[in-house]
């Protein structure tokens, strides 16, 4: 009964994720990617960071490491999988989720609190919220602009795969509230199944009361 927080060379939010989960009473451990998933794995987090130095494209190398096959199998068997920031880039690069996270519209690294509107509350990641709720969670990325073809974006919307959108504090989804130029203000999406999700903002940095807000805790409670 443990959540595997998968470390690649250059991951740097793995400890934060373990600490946040532990605070919520959820058993978690860091797992080096070459060691494979432990047999008792009940959930997987692909944490933030700069795996493989973001060489080629953010997440490209990690997405093709052998442990991703194990993670895909685990996801197919119903294990919840969450990609955060670099983990979200890895998720898209590996095909766990659609689209790509690429260079921010303003071509700069952005590290700031943002507001997210909960688009769906009937998923494991958002059971703690109501649809339309606004939560405040930090972002810290240079390549977080969600990009996808118009046709596939329409399908994501039609299939209700969008989990979070960047919004103003009142919940309105506006261009001004879009920190990175993401299509449709998309901050997080679901995979084919609701128990697979990726998002650029960091819920693990908004879980411990001592370091700020706790709006992100609900996302991690999916692993409880």
């Amino acid at each position, binding site marked *: 009964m443990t959540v595997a927080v998968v470390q690649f060379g250059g991951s740097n939010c793995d400890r934060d994720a373990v600490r946040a989960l532990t605070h919520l009473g959820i058993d978690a451990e860091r797992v080096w990617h070459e060691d494979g998933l432990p047999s008792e794995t009940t959930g997987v987090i692909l944490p933030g960071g700069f795996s493989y130095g973001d060489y080629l494209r953010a997440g490209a190398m990690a997405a*093709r490491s052998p442990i991703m096959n194990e993670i895909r199998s685990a996801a197919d068997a119903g294990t919840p999988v969450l990609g955060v920031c670099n983990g979200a880039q890895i998720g898209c690069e590996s095909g766990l989720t659609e689209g790509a996270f690429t260079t921010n519209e303003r071509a700069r690294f952005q590290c700031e609190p943002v507001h997210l509107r909960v688009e769906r509350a009937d998923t494991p990641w958002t059971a703690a919220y109501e649809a339309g709720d606004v939560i405040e969670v930090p972002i810290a990325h240079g390549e977080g602009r969600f990009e996808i073809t118009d046709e596939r974006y329409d399908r994501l919307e039609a299939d209700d795969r969008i989990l979070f959108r960047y919004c103003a504090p009142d919940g309105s989804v506006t261009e001004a509230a879009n920190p990175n130029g993401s299509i449709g203000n998309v901050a997080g999406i679901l995979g084919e199944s609701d128990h697979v999700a990726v998002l650029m903002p960091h819920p693990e940095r908004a879980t411990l009361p001592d370091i700020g807000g706790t709006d992100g805790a609900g996302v991690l409670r999916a692993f409880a």
Partner: protein
Amino acid sequence: MTAYTATVTVRLKRGVLDPEAETTKRSLERLGFELSGLRSADRFEIDLEADSPAAAKETATEMTERLLANPTIHDYEVSVAAAGQS
């Protein structure tokens, strides 16, 4: 087996925003140059052994599709020459 060099060019699809190219364009303009557009691309030169140019191209294309390019945002071209002639 013959030594070949495959040259792979990976560029953003038309219509996909390229903030780095935009920033580069603005810097050139600040230097006083006049230009109406700028696109950037990644080029990979891959040395490999293969039975024929077609086989070398096939391998390089597979490398591109599996890692070097992301089909969501990229188009790519692959060309092959005898090693040392590219």
